């Protein structure tokens, strides 16, 4: 039992990272209806910027964090302005492919900068483990977990109770209609990408805290995508819950199924869950069911 709990909690920690990555994807989808493959790169760049200020320039924590947020947000904004804005009103698949193209181009930049090296974030959080009832939790990951929860709370507050949030939700449903009510849709898109950039930076920093900054980092975007879809592409709560769940399923699956099938369960656990969820609930666990009128 202790063992199971330990695996689950380790899974929860990883899951919170997935949830953070997924949050950015959900934000973008919610208002622009674009499923962004490029998000993994935003995450990676967020981590890289943070490393640059903290490890590269040796700035203190906050002084590194703020410019990292700003730069990632700007990158998000640039993606929206330069690449996606011209595609407004064009088929959504074109926008999807655009994010794929951006993923490749940004990967090139990422690789060009790294030159085959691995960048490691300095320890900016307290190290060591917390031991409770035979279960040990790394403190820095626990902090990451709490930050994730806080961020989700904050995001849902923004969506529910601010004017900007209302505008975002309205835009999410119908761009033309939103325009006709005086919402400046393009501005909303910009805000969304900025917000998504900041969330990506948080996700990137939290992930790089666990996994170094190297070539595989952007590919966490794929995990984020699975989570976003399972949770329902337009549901933040879904991203959080499914993110945590996926972390647990992967970890517990690897713990108990791997010996039975000869390894590598982690690879497919997520996809198996995705398939199962979609078969039972075609719009994800928490996604809005489209109100269809014939």
């Amino acid at each position, binding site marked *: 039992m202790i063992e199971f709990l330990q695996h689950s909690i380790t899974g929860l920690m990883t899951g919170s990272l997935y949830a953070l990555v997924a949050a950015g994807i959900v934000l973008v989808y919610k208002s622009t209806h674009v499923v962004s493959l490029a998000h993994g790169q935003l995450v990676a760049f967020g981590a890289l910027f943070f490393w640059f200020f903290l490890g590269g320039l040796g700035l203190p924590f906050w002084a590194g964090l703020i410019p990292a947020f700003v730069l990632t947000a700007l990158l998000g904004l640039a993606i929206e302005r330069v690449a996606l804005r011209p595609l407004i009103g064009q088929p959504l698949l074109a926008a999807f492919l655009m994010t794929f193209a951006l993923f490749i181009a940004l990967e090139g930049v990422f690789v060009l900068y790294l030159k085959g090296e691995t960048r490691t974030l300095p320890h900016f959080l307290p190290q060591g483990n917390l031991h409770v009832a035979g279960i040990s939790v790394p403190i820095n990951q626990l902090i990451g977990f709490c930050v994730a929860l806080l961020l989700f709370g904050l995001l849902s507050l923004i969506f529910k109770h601010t004017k900007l949030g*209302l505008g975002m*939700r*309205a835009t999410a449903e119908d761009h*033309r*209609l939103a325009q006709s009510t005086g*919402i*400046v*849709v393009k501005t909303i898109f910009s805000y969304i990408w900025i917000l998504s950039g900041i969330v990506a930076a948080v996700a990137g920093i939290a992930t790089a805290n666990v996994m170094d900054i190297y070539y595989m980092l952007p590919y966490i975007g794929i995990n984020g995508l699975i989570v976003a879809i399972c949770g329902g592409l337009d549901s933040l709560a879904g991203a959080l819950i499914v993110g945590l769940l996926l972390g647990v399923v992967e970890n517990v699956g690897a713990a108990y199924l791997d010996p039975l099938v000869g390894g590598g369960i982690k690879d497919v656990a997520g996809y198996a869950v995705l398939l199962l969820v979609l078969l039972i609930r075609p719009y994800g666990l928490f996604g809005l069911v489209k*109100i269809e009128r014939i």
Partner: protein
Amino acid sequence: MLSINNIEVIYSNVILVLKGVSLTMGQGDIVALLGANGAGKTTALKAMSGLLRTELGEVTDGSIEFEGTRIDHRDPEEIVRMGVVQVMEGRPMFEQLTVEENIRVGAYSRNDTAGIRADMEEVYGYFPTLARMKDRVSGYLSGGERQMLVMGRGLMARPKLMLLDEPSLGLSPALVKEIFKIIQRINREQDTSILVVEQNAVIALSISDHAYVMENGRIVLDGPSAKLKENEDIKEFYLGLSQVGKRKSYKDVKHYRRRKRWLS
């Protein structure tokens, strides 16, 4: 307050939809725009509200002026801020939002919290049905309720000019009457000018001060509504009355009959 001077509209650089349309409206007027499907009525509305540009349409000639300012090359958001609100055809709404949130979105371009609150009460005054279902998700509303909601949402922007596109489409006769009564009330009480595009010529002519008739992207006829009601062509082709003033039965339509085409 609104004057459209000989505008031409082209879609995706090829399709010429409006071929010189002119129209003027005064403060507090109700103007009806009649015409067959595909005549270009909706396009004309979209040209005024700026929504054309999101559909690859473009005003290529002529000008649209609202209170002395040219608006034909502005973004729809800006035009809404200036006080021109279009209530689109088909009653589109934010289906996942509640009724109240839908109405709040209508006031998105405004920043006066107190004023918005007061206006919201006013809208609920016009449409008591909406007040009752404030917290309902709007996607489940019926056609009539939807029409009220979109009009209420439009009112929240405190428009000086409201463009209504086919408010009666698919509504029962009783509801149509009710909706048009409210339109008249809004016009009276808020001094909002209203431009209404309608298929139901009978009711449109009965509440409007002035009417225009469009065909094939041109205005072919206009005049005070009372006068147009007496026009023979209007009678036959829009009101469905034959010469003697009696309605012709649909059963009696012949396989060949006189069609009216305006030459221009």
